[in-house]
């Protein structure tokens, strides 16, 4: 009970700090989304939501209808993957449709945000590599179920952030060509 309560408090503190920081940035930059960007972000949310829904249905159909001799994912591993897939779909759609950054002063340079995502992705892949070297196995299988471990989470996060970074670079190149 004690450790869970402590973790809950920690989560509240982190969410509070991030919310305050975001609000401060929003007030200072006056950044907002124009009408096309709002529409696009709405579509991105819808697509991400339905992607997650479809994956969930496929997962449960696979788990419940196929015989237990088939290899399957642990529910917690699937949920983590689902979150990263949703995040990647939402961000990639917004980046490709130019609705990731709003209108107004941007402290972030749009040219470097893809580098940032690729860097984050690289950190996760480095963590993945280190975990493998330390002897963690890629697949811990128990009764035909792939159990979640840190290695898989790092790999999934690395792939998701790399996808976002690559979309950013594609958009950047397309914009450069458009401006020329």
């Amino acid at each position, binding site marked *: 009970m004690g450790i869970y309560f402590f973790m809950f408090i920690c989560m509240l503190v982190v969410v509070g700090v991030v919310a305050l920081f975001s609000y401060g940035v929003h007030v200072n930059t006056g950044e907002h989304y*124009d*009408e*096309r*960007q709002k529409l696009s972000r709405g579509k991105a949310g819808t697509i991400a939501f339905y992607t997650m829904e479809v994956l969930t249905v496929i997962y449960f159909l696979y788990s419940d209808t196929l015989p237990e001799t088939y290899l399957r994912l642990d529910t917690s591993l699937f949920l983590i993957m689902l979150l990263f897939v949703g995040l990647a779909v939402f961000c990639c759609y917004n980046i490709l449709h*130019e609705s990731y*950054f*709003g*209108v107004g002063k941007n402290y972030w340079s749009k040219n470097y945000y893809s580098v940032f995502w690729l860097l984050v992705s690289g950190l996760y892949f480095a963590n993945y590599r280190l975990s493998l070297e330390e002897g963690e196995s890629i697949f811990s299988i128990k009764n035909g179920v792939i159990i979640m471990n840190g290695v898989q989470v790092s790999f999934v996060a690395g792939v998701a952030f790399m996808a976002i970074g690559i979309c950013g670079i594609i958009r950047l190149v397309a*914009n450069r060509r*458009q401006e020329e």
Partner: protein
Amino acid sequence: MKNLRLKAARAAKDLSQEALADLCDVSRQTISAIEKGDYNPTINLCIAICKALDKTLDELFWEE
């Protein structure tokens, strides 16, 4: 359908897409999408564009 009249009016004022976007408080890609006919702006944005380019709604957006 491409909005060539908007593009011509912008060029006549010697404004880049970025400059017009700043005047209308939208992103450059939104102006680009309107010119290419990929996005239909709301009446509020149409008015803002017309004011920025000193044109009427008919001159820029009315289809004959």
